[in-house]
Every structure is written in C-alpha cells, then in structure tokens.
C-alpha cells in the first residue's frame, strides 16, 4: 500500500511541477541515514526523492508559515503543494479559519492514511489507533485507498489516570515531566498552530515568563501553550514527537480538547462552517460555571 501511495505521490508531484501549477512540493524524503524527514521539491526531476511510509509523522503545514510573504517585494506569493495526512489537513483548516493562509496558495495532496508508527516499537501511535478520519476531510487530489482500519473508540483512557490523581499528585507528575524540559521550543516550532511573531514566553514587555529554565517558567510555558491551543489543537502530535526529552505533551493538549468538546461540542479543524468557540462571542451564551 505504501509503495503505491509513494508512486502516486511522485507522479502527482512531477505533474504539478511540470505544469507549473505549484512552485514547490512539500513532502517527505529519506535522509542519508535512512530516516524520514520533510522535503522540498522544486524540480520535477527530483520528484522521486519523495517517499511515503508509516514514519511520515511530521505535520508539514508548519512550513506554510514561512511562505506568507513573497520572495521579493512586489511578487506574488508562490503556490505550494503539501503532502497531507488527515490530521495535517485539520491543521490547515485551522489556519484557513484564522486567516493565516490563502486557500488558493495551497494545493493539498491528501493521503489516505493507515496511521503512523512509533519509531522505537514499530507499533501504531496511540493517536493513530484512535483516529476516526482515514481520509482527509478536504483535498485537491487524493492519493491512496481509504484503509480498512477499525479505529479504537475515543475513551480518553490516557487522561483517566491523571484525572484520578489529586491536584497535588497531578502537580507532582508534571513537575517530574517538566524537570527535563530544556525550553528548546521544539514543541512550539513543530506546531502549525503556534505562529505568533513573538511568543508570550519570550516577550519582555509585558513580561509573562522569565528567561530561567526552571520549573515555574517551564510549567507556565507549557500550560499557557496548551491554553492558547484550546479549541485549536488538532491532535497531530507534532509537539510530542518533536520533543527531545520525550515529554508526554499530548496529555496537556488532549485534556483541553476534551474540555472544549464537553463545553462547546466542538473539535478543531473539522467543519469549516462552525466558528471556533473560543474566538466567537455570542450574546445568548450561557456557560455552566
């Protein structure tokens, strides 16, 4: 299956570039060490660099933020094609919703996805086992057959253990996890939803967080990042996969996904018509507080 998706991706990429429909195809390639990583193909002759397998976990929508300005003043912003899994397309939906990206500048090469694997164990990632969407909700072209996978029900089991703990125990859990955080911001940089010109964690005026790499600052950064993604996180897991210290960041973001769903019946990146609840004011709104 991967073979044919890979072949189809290469063919589509070559066509798009030859026809001049896009200036670049953002996809995946294999590094000289054999690991999958993001790739930028400009020349149709290079289309065979593109690969597809179950380690193509990066959310490539993050690279759209580099392309919001034309290469030279007065020029048009070039159109790019992006190889996109269903979760990646949800992220694009959020960016379109928030007016960050112009729809016509992105050609979505949707991929029907059977799920990504943990690199160490070669088992399906937990988030992929739960995934309800094997085909992206929109695309300009689709590659791959919808896989016959029965998703595991979303039961928030990963959060259950934390939710059972007392507040003090939960604090102790996160203190242990954040202890090894080095404030490298890989989580933030890998996330398509984090695109502030100046992150609140680095602002000096007003000063929200200091420069210290200590628990209070680290906790503040992670909790506030999760809050700033509430109602916006699409659970692509790019943050957790990017973390060099393997901190289980998905637990923070998923907790808020769960809360937003319970409060507003809303999940990010889905139906493009529903305005995002945390960015929408309704006079008739009543929240049980």
């Amino acid at each position, binding site marked *: 299956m991967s073979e044919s998706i890979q072949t189809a991706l290469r063919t589509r990429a070559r066509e798009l570039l030859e026809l001049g429909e896009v200036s670049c195809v953002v996809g995946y390639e294999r590094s000289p060490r054999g690991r999958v*990583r993001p790739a930028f193909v400009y020349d149709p002759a290079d289309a065979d660099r593109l690969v597809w397998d179950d380690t193509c976990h990066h959310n490539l929508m993050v690279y759209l933020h580099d392309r919001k300005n034309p290469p030279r003043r007065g020029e048009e912003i070039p159109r790019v094609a992006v190889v996109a899994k269903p979760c990646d397309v949800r992220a694009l939906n959020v960016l379109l919703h928030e007016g960050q990206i112009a729809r016509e500048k992105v050609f979505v090469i949707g991929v029907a996805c059977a799920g990504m694997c943990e690199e160490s164990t070669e088992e399906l990632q937990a988030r992929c086992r739960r995934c309800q969407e094997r085909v992206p909700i929109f695309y300009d072209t689709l590659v791959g057959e919808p896989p016959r996978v029965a998703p595991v029900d979303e039961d928030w089991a990963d959060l259950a253990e934390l939710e059972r703990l007392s507040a003090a125990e939960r604090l102790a859990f996160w203190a*242990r996890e954040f202890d090894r955080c*080095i404030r490298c*911001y*890989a989580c933030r940089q890998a996330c398509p939803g984090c695109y502030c010109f100046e992150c609140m964690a680095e602002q*000096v005026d007003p000063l929200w967080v200091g*420069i210290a790499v200590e628990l209070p600052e680290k906790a503040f950064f992670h909790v506030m990042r999760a809050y700033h993604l509430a109602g916006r996180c699409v659970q692509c897991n790019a943050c957790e996969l990017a973390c060099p210290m393997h901190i289980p960041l998905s637990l923070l973001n998923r907790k808020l996904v769960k809360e937003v769903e319970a409060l507003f019946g809303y999940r990010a990146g889905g139906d493009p018509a529903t305005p995002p609840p945390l960015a929408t004011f309704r006079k008739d709104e009543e929240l049980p507080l």
Partner: protein
Amino acid sequence: MKLTRREQLAAWLDALMERATVIAPRQVESELLYRPVAASDEVVFDFQRTAMSPKGYFLPSTEVLLEIEKRGAEVTLDEALPQEEQVLFAIRPCDARGLRVLDALLVEHEPADVYYAGRRHQTTLVGLACPRLWPECFCTSIGGAPDDSSDVDVMLYEVDGGYLVSEVTAKGAALLAGLQAEETDQPAPVSDRDGPSVLVLEAEAWPALFNELYWARFTERCLSCHACTYVCPTCRCFDVRDYTTAAGPNGIRIERLRSWDSCMAAAYRRIAGGHNPRSSKMHRLRNRYYCKFNYCPQDFGAVACVGCGRCIAVCPVGVDIVEMLGDVAALAAARVGEGGADE
C-alpha cells in the same frame, strides 16, 4: 595502571559524595542525563550517550550572576560565584573535549568568564572511554577519538572484570586516593574507531562558500527551535536579564540571571526598534555552521564541534551536520575542480 571493579568504583563514589557534588549519568524518566547523584546505585554505568552534554554544570542553563539589593538610591551588588566542588563521573571524551572548546571561547581570551572558569576549576573530570563509536557519532572526523584522554583528569576503560583506571592529571590522582584497586600491567584497550567519517573542510576554505545557493536549500526544513544548540557540548550563547525576586517597604531584591539562548531563535538578533539582520532561518543556520567551522577556529583556535552526534539525534526534522559537512566538502572540491578558486 590500576584495575578496579564496579563495586569498588561505586564505594569510592559514595565516599566522594560526602565532600563534593558527584554528577553522573542517571535515568530521569525517559532520558539518560548527567545529574547530581545521592548514592552510587543511582549511577548508570552502562550507556552510550546521554541526551544532554554535561556543559550545564559549567555554563548552567540558568545561573544567578549578581544578587542586587536596592533601597531607594542605595544599591548593593553581590556576585553569586560558584562555590561547590564537583566531580563529573563518566564524562565521554567528546564532551570533555567540548569543555576544552568552551575554555577557548570563554576563558582563554581576556577577560575570562569568572563563573564558567570557577566551575571548571572546582570540577574534577572522571572520563569513561567509549569502546566504539555510537550511532550518529563522528568524533574521529573532527580530530577526536572515543578513547581520547587529553581532556579529563582520570580516564576509565571498560575491560573484563571492571575498569582500568588511568591517572591523567595531578588533580585526578588526588581524587583517586581512596579507590580500591590493584596494580596491573594490562594496557589500556584501544577503542574501535570504525564508523562513518566525513571530511571537515578546513576553516580557511569556508568563506568562499558563504553565498552558495546550497544554504537556502539545506536549511529549509529547519524549524528554528533551540534543540541542537542546547544539546551541543560547545554552543555557549547566552541571555542576561534582571528579575525582581522580592519587594517590600525596605527595598527590592533583584537577581541578574544568565540563561542559555540560541542563535537559531528568530528574535536572536532583533533589537528594540525591530531591526533584525538575521530574520531568515537560512541566515541563522548558516551562521551557526560558520560559527563552528570558520569563526571559532579563526577567533579562538578551536573548531566548535566535537562530533558527539547529539544535534543529529535530536533534530525533529533531520537537519544533519554530517550531511552538511559532506556537502560543503563536495562544494569546495567542485570549486577547486573548476579551477575557479577566487578566494
């Protein structure tokens, strides 16, 4: 040389812990990190490479430079100079060499950084030779070796039955007093140097390649996070800022903090007013490599890379310094091939 068993080493470490902070590889949840240990049973003896280099025990990720008290116009300053004795146990030759590079960058040119220099002075390094190169390692390409004892005070070599102990410096010899060991004429094992090697282009040849289109292509996948700079044994860029820690009717207490910063950050060179000479990630990543392989060798006499491979292991998007070095060597060779050395 001496031969000692692991239990004897452990007992010696336990005794050291009574008079110094012993820093050793310790399992911290999912990661192996150099951390202070309270007992020798916390020490991980069998490992390849820790996730972070131990540079944080010399140039901490957060450090108080000054303690300031302000009472109206009256201000008193106190330097928070490092006080404690440290023993860094099981440091790898590459990481020890990283400290030698940091010495060149921070101490050997006047004025010296007194905080880093103080910690270096107060720390004894007990090295542990690597039997071979680990994945992503390339120390041999950069003039290092998995069993290089040049930069440690004591070197340990894993052998059948325990460890060979080599006294490298007088400081190391002094530390070894109290270690149970027997004399042996067993020679130190020579580590296996097999592994991928890459040509590191000499510093003088880099300027000619500065404007190659290659850099824009190579850096495009970079996310501008700080992971590579923070795990690196030789990166040392820092930020300094004051923070009020207590305020009352009798005055204000302030700490001047120093923390790690990264040249990869978009705002690294942005000044108040907004001007940013390195606003593109191409400029930033190119600067990082030039700093390591051209500027530091020319300004400080040291290549600022020791081949530990951590940046390769940690990069979320596969930016690979060895790949870059190979590409740069090829670019330089192509230029020479064209006969067009205009530099």
